[in-house]
């Protein structure tokens, strides 16, 4: 099953200058009772975003209409904790196409890549510059170029390259689904099983 092809894009960004944003903050466990992949964006950052009665917390960045865009820029060690893919679904469902941080938790990174959400890992210094620039001026745009593996802060032209596994890059750019590939080698897997018996 093909997934949406990832294309390079320009966007304003939403700053979240908090470190160790864990998956329980991204999507609390009590919202994991669904049996489909849809609709998790509604509860993205639920307890930071809404109060007890469901009233939006003004101080939280997603409730500040000045900050919009399809790029989330967050502090170091983003996505730590549980393996819930619902975290990646929630971020993607909300409308983000990329998350920028100086460090990602392993399982979250995989889950993001498997859902067409690009984790962009930059240096601490570049992250600090990005956060400062977008916080000060919400209209500042970032360019994310997956082919060239480069992220650019358009207001200053400052850019940094980022790493991505070449296989995953290929999958994202072409909209390949890796289960399709794995299905195509089922015979080889059966041979492997036989060789171990």
């Amino acid at each position, binding site marked *: *099953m093909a997934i949406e092809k990832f294309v390079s894009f320009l966007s304003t960004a939403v700053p979240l*200058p*908090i*470190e*160790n944003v*864990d998956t*329980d*903050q991204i999507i*609390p*466990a*009590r919202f*994991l*009772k*669904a*049996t*489909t*992949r849809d609709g998790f964006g509604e509860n993205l950052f639920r*307890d930071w975003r809404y109060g*007890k009665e469901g009233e939006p917390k003004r101080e939280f960045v997603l409730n500040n209409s000045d900050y919009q865009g399809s790029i989330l820029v967050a*502090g*170091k*060690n983003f996505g*730590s*904790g*549980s*393996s*819930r*893919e*619902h975290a*990646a679904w929630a971020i993607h469902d909300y409308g983000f196409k990329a998350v920028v941080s100086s*460090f*990602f*938790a*392993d*399982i979250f990174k*995989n*889950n993001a890549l*498997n*859902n067409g959400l690009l984790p962009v890992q930059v240096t*601490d210094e570049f992250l600090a510059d990005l956060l400062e620039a977008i916080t000060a001026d919400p209209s500042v745009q970032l360019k994310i170029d997956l082919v060239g593996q480069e992220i650019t802060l358009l207001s200053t032209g400052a850019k940094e390259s980022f790493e991505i*596994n*070449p*296989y*995953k890059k290929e999958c994202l750019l072409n909209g390949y689904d*890796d*289960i399709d590939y*794995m*299905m195509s*080698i*089922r015979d*080889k*897997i059966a041979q*492997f*099983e036989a060789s171990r018996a």
Partner: protein
Amino acid sequence: MVEEIKGGPSVLYIDRHLIHEVTSPQAFAGIDKRGISVFRPQNTVATPDHNVPTLNQHLPIKDELSRFQVNKLTENCEKHGITLYGLNHPYQGIVHVIGPELGITQPGMTMVCGDSHTSTHGAFGSVAFGIGTSEVEMVLATQCILQPKPKKMRITVDGELSPGVTAKDVILYIISKISASGGTGYFIEYAGPAIRSLSMEGRMTVCNMSIESGARGGLIAPDETTFSYIRGREFAPKGADFDRAVSYWKTLVSDDDAVFDRELQFDAADIEPMITYGTNPGMGASIGARIPEIYEVEASARKSFEKSMAYMGFEPGTEISGRKVDYVFVGSCTNGRIEDLRNVAQFVKGRKKADHVTAWIVPGSKQVEKQAHEEGLTEILQEAGFRLRQPGCSACLAMNDDKIPEGKLAVSTSNRNFEGRQGPGARTMLASPLTAAASAVSGEVSDPRQFLGSD
């Protein structure tokens, strides 16, 4: 390993796949949408745990969404021919508790589950790690997973643990030293005399929390302790097969000249009962210590530290112990095994729980529950004012009704102290079952050693 994709990950064959109700429904939906069958249904075992009530399990689940999700698991397993230990089955329990106790987990196996605490099974010298739902779908479809080779870290703990210091304190100590992200990108091998001295239950506690340092997996080389734990279990090899298996398992040790990407060494004598004071598992200290002052915290982490203190309602620089405790939770895949219940029962025997403390003791599985009854632990706990609930993940992640109320302070034997982890606004301090028991008895955060030798 089936093959290596050029410039990409390896195709890793999975020997055992465990599934539960929360991270599998979308994977089964994917299988159905593709119109394919589960490739090797006999290699997957299922049980509901995250979402189940821990009281009145004989009744239909009250919460509609939870009931639907648990029923969905039953439906999917029936449809695809997967073994399910459903609610009220004598083998039901937390997925990482039942795998080892049924002998499903064995040295040298590759194991995955849509749960980050799959690292638990590494205690047997298996390669075990948590995966996301897309990967669950991949394993159902092909019994394989795409996995890049991780970096290797070895953590050696020399010397002997002091009385009152347990496996939980060892791992909380390690995480406090390497931080909640220090293990990211690695598989950790735990080694050294202090690790070797641990029971299988203790080793599982250590490996379980590998992910709290960011490491996807943690493992311990199998030895006689491992083999005698496995011997005689339901799905363990029997007779001559067992002997053959043991001779293979004995080969599963790191070479003497093995090179690790990172090596760390700790001394057991430096480890005291540990407890966390913040909102990630790396924010831990000896129970007799003080919370750091802001200037003692690394500059880049100060903002997060302050946020954490504000959430916990703690003042930097203050004593950790002596705080009034509202709730005590003993359970989870970290500390819900029989040894944990024995430790708690032994500690509270002849003592009473403080009146103002609400204590939830949740066995990790039906078998643990049964054993607790048979060993008389249930009665000891009852006499001390505790009540044993029924098996499940419970207040560890508060998906069911077992939620710590807003603002209340809980000493928990679980694995995560994140904001809201045990319920919106709940404040969690992670500790060992002994420290949890001591805190339940005294009604405040307490060092269990102050009670030792006073019996």
